[in-house]
């Protein structure tokens, strides 16, 4: 029983945070497991950062309660919480060296000088910045500052690490590299990572579970593949990856059933007009005819906007393979997909 309790790192119980009439976080309940890489994904203003700040203790819930490893956080200031944060702007102390920055938490806890130095060096080594201790933050690149911020938080061995869009300011290549490293570091230290991002690609590639936030509420909480393959709401389908949202008459004409649903662009197959749906799929497929309106070349693949014969558009993604049929603009085509790939929403 005690084992089960300790395996939960963070609990939100009907937590709300209101600023006047604005409900930044609106009656949210969820649990984050110990050792999990948990992402909070959503557009700006969806409440994900507020949730992070509530865990860190910079904000306090208007109602509801938060506990970290079974300990209630009501009235507990940030400096008494066993969590550390990697800030979006890194928040490195400009008047201290890198080593002093990393050792700051240990200095505050009055860890003896020798141990402090050793642990700070270890932490810098872990983020591949050994030997940078004597520099000032202003002498580092954005990616290096990001690593220092990570080392400064991890050196305290918190039970939960909070990351507030830590890769947001980095360029694409560096971001992808840091995603791999962050994931590796998380496995190495085994600490719960709570990761706030608006980048669905980042969330999908790193997380064990993702909570999708929208307007202060959680739309869906699931592992990445489930979130992508089985979005519960139209918002999730639209925010995580690209989707063709089908509504009302349009949905009814295409699927034969009313009720909103969606289909991923890469799940749609394209055949030259006049061909039929391949016989092997015919009994489980839906199809429609259309004309290619535009082609967007994206390198590995191309994105097609297809105007359907009976109204409406569909977006289709095709891999640019030599063997595939790749229609040109203006060409008439047949679109088909497996019925199981159609994602139906609840409510």
């Amino acid at each position, binding site marked *: 029983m005690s084992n089960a309790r300790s395996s939960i790192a963070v609990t939100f119980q009907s937590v709300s945070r209101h600023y006047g009439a604005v409900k930044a976080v609106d009656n949210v309940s969820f649990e984050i497991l110990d050792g999990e890489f948990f992402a909070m994904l959503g557009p700006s203003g969806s409440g994900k950062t507020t949730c992070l700040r509530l865990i860190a203790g*910079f904000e306090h819930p208007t109602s509801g309660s938060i506990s970290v490893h079974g300990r209630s956080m009501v009235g507990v200031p940030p*400096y008494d919480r066993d969590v550390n944060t990697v800030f979006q702007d890194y*928040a490195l102390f*400009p008047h201290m060296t890198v080593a002093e920055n990393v050792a700051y938490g240990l200095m505050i806890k009055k860890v003896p000088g020798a141990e402090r130095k050793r642990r700070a060096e270890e932490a810098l080594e872990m983020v591949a910045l050994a030997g940078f201790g004597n520099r000032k933050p202003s002498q580092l690149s954005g990616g290096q500052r990001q690593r220092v911020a990570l080392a400064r938080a991890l050196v305290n061995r918190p039970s939960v690490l909070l990351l507030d869009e830590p890769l947001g300011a980095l360029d694409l290549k560096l971001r992808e590299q840091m995603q791999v490293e962050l994931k590796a570091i998380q496995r190495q230290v085994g600490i719960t990572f709570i990761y706030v991002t608006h980048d669905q690609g980042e969330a999908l590639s790193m997380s064990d579970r993702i909570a999708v936030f929208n307007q202060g509420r959680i739309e869906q909480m699931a592992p990445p593949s489930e979130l992508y393959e089985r979005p519960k709401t139209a918002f999730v389908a639209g925010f995580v990856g690209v989707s063709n949202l089908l509504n009302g008459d349009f949905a009814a004409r295409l699927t034969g059933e009313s009720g909103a649903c969606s289909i991923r662009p890469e799940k749609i197959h394209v055949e030259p007009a006049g061909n039929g749906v391949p016989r092997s799929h015919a009994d489980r497929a839906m199809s429609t005819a259309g004309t290619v309106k535009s082609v967007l070349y994206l390198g590995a693949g191309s994105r097609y906007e297809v105007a359907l014969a009976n109204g409406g558009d569909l977006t289709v993604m095709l891999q640019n393979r030599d063997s595939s049929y790749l229609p040109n603009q203006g060409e008439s085509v047949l679109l088909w997909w497996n019925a199981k790939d159609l994602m139906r929403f609840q409510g």
Partner: protein
Amino acid sequence: MASLTETIRTPSSLGRLSTYLYTRPRLLLLLLLVPPLLWLGIIYLGSLFSLLLQSFFQLDDFTGQVVMKPTIGNYLRLFSATNLSIILRTAGMAAVVTVISAMIAFPLAYYMARYADKRMKALFYVAVMLPLWSNYLVRVYAWKLILAKEGAIHWIFNQLGLGGFLDWILSLPVIEGSSLSTSYLGTMITFVYIWLPYMILPVQAALERVPRSLVEASSDLGAKPGETFRKVILPLAIPGVAAGSIFTFSLTLGDYIIPQLIGSSRPFIGQAVYQFQGTSGDIPMAAAFAMVPIAIMAVYLAIAKRLGAFDAL
């Protein structure tokens, strides 16, 4: 098509000039910099240089004429007991005024930078700047009245039954005076009042530049508010305090009106300069005296730099 070529072919002379300058950014920079550089070079540095030059001449006591023969006699005279006491008195006053100003300004600036909302901040800005809009002499005379034996402060102390306490303070060594307006304490109060805005504004600007996330990061890493203040906020505000102290310190060093109107009537550097060039017509000695605040400021800045006051800039 025709109209397009036409518009390109007939630019105005002003347009031609701006194109000419646009393609020669160095020339533009030169044109922009020449007037201020002339001003700075000739009027500012030139007059300082002539001051320096003058200080090495000497006044002929018999003829009353300036003898243009280089000598360091004036500088040696600065170290006479009378002149040295003037210098020490002025530097001491400047130091005390600076420390007191910083102590009063810091909490105000801290509130303005970190807590005040937009309206409150605007209100404080106006409150801080408002005294600067009125005449300096008027304000000094106002303080002379406030600090006088019959003035408001003495009256309040007497009404509160604290008249004896005030008299005791005024009887202390160094401060010694029959009333606030005739003691060093009165001089200091007036100086602090007059120069305080010059301390508040840079400190406030420095505190405002400390991102909130740094304060949050410190507290996130386990530091209690007091520790965060000492380890993060204060070190980052020091350049602002240093900038403010340069104002309060140098302005006090150079002022000759306040010590003349309020205080013990013992002379400050500014009064000595005034007297040498005015009453006794000893321009070279006045020039030598005028070099003293410059020398003190140079030493002051060197010490501040050595102590790392500008490291966080």
